[in-house]
């Protein structure tokens, strides 16, 4: 996984709540057996509408998605994270993420940063009045910034310490866990014999 420290990129306001993972990547795309090539499936149904914001320049170049509450609900498909990343997104900002989506993002290197709902509202207004404006998200200091002068938006975001550390270091989860192989073996030795086995 690539290290993530800070990112500055075009922001896109997505004025929708409950963006479920079926909307992010519809099920028929899930038949693929690779982790890439999902960009054309991202928000596929909504992108059929020429007025959908991701179809409009300069928002189509966005790398920071600013979404409504309860982003990533529903299906556990990690393909939703891959689709966002394949398209070019590095960061998703929302006031509330579904647990599985948040976990999947952390594993794949997409930053799911939770900010206050008021910050989302201000970013929406700012990005709508200033198409193509950038948003800076700094993982080191846990801050999100946009705009300049008196109207500048600057606030902190929430991410758990462990995920932040892993993203900053670009660490592979399996590798970390396998360094504790002795603990796993010790646990296995003490498991009750009545626990079921498939083989």
């Amino acid at each position, binding site marked *: 996984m690539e290290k993530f420290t800070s990112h500055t990129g075009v922001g896109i306001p997505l*004025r*929708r*709540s*409950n963006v*479920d993972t*079926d*909307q992010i990547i*519809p*099920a*028929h795309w*899930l*038949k*693929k*057996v*690779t*982790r890439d090539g999902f960009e054309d499936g991202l928000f596929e*149904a909504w992108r059929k509408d020429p007025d959908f914001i991701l179809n409009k320049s300069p928002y189509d170049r966005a790398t920071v998605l600013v979404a*409504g*509450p*309860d982003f990533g*609900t*529903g*299906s*556990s*498909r*990690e*393909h939703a*994270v891959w689709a966002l990343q394949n398209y070019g997104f590095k960061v998703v900002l929302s006031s*509330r993420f*579904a*647990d*599985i989506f948040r*976990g*999947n993002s952390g*594993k*794949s290197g997409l930053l799911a940063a939770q900010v206050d709902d008021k910050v989302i509202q201000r970013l929406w207004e700012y990005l709508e009045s200033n198409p193509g404006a950038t948003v800076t998200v700094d993982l080191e200091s846990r801050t999100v910034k946009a705009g300049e002068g008196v109207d500048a938006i600057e606030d902190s975001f929430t991410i*758990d*310490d*462990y995920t932040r550390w892993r993203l900053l270091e670009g660490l592979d*989860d*399996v590798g*970390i*866990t*396998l360094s*504790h*192989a002795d*603990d*796993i073996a010790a*646990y*296995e030795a003490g*498991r*009750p*014999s*009545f*626990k*079921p*086995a*498939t*083989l």
Partner: protein
Amino acid sequence: MGRTLAEKVWDDHVVRSHEGEPDLLFIDLHLIHEVTSPQAFDGLRLAGRQVRRPDLTLATEDHNIPTTDLDKPIADIVSRTQVETLRRNAEEFGVRLHPMGDIDQGIVHVVGPQLGLTQPGMTIVCGDSHTATHGAFGSIAFGIGTSEVEHVLATQTLSQAKPKMMAVEVTGELPPDATAKDLILALIAQETTGGGQGYIVEYRGEAIRKLSMEARMTICNMSIEWGAKAGLIAPDQTTYDYLQGRPNAPKGAEWDAAVAYWDTLVSDDDAQFDKVVTIDASTVAPFVTWGTNPGQGVPLSASVPDPESFDDPIQREAAQKALTYMGLTAGTPMRDIKVDTVFIGSCTNGRIEDLRVAAKLIEGRKVAEDTRILVVPGSVRVRLQAEEEGLDVIFKEAGAEWRGAGCSMCLGMNPDQLTPGERSASTSNRNFEGRQGKGGRTHLVSPDVAVATGVLGHLASPADLPEMAGV
């Protein structure tokens, strides 16, 4: 201080606990299927790793497979490739697989319990968000992403921050015309889709104790639809009676040892929950959704709500968008909504008990003109059991379609799909835009409401059905 049921199960699976880090949990059972596993096996191969515990892993084919023409190769080449990839991976890594045509094939969440692999006090994961189904046995069961599937394959563990604990106190008794599905739909509407976020929820109370295992599975299955990490129910005699004698259930002295442990799996009287939610089961009536998330539901006797009636601007906007997508007008009585297709099946309501209820209700009646009913058993064994009881004949005589086992029309990734604008009453778990096929419009319902709707051609409950002559 006492502990909750979930805390007890959690504590019993901690491999490693370290300040400032998530706990490393041992996973007792890892269920896999064709859709969310190929990239995980690829990851293992790239790193030169093995499956650590193939003996705690089980694979089945369910999501993208057809439910007709089962004797022929899968027509859709991309789907066929994915299924063949699972077969190759299972063989290469020594994982037990129940492929199409096998007697134990079926939806992963129907197969685990029916084999007796799902038992109290376990940790169970699967790359599928409806894994909480297994919580009905008093286990911590939850859905994971593909990176986590790879992690479990390689290590048989998962790093998890301990969620908060919530109790859902179900007071009173369900009225005779209300089902477990109505109860969970009403709860999700009450708590909204984000209400359970960050929690493991324990469903408790007399109404829950009286439910069958199938009904408990329906409740736990939909925990994710209100955002909960997992949902579970303390095991009791109903659980033991369901388990005893199943192929993978403990036997003899092992059974006694297991029961002695399972008996300890209750929340202590002085256990502290971070949050308690109450719902009065006696107020629950047949319940249906009108919108595009599972929280947008009302009793069947109500009307399509007016978006202006929502105080919260975000909910108001969501309601407006939902009505446009669903092609509904505020104020329309739910019973006036005509339905094209009825789907009875899925990991929510595709078990034998669901099919028995549906068959009993449809016996001697006919599917409405211009409406179709699809009945899709959750597993091959459910299908065979139903056929032994003659349920397939009842469905077919009524004009319903009787299919092979799989996820089918619950999600639009196999041939069973709605066409744009087509409206369904579905016993599945999600009414998202396009969930059952591009442009399809879904109303979530119980099996009872599904059958009544299929017979009358509009959303209806069994009470709306005319009396049959001679009954």
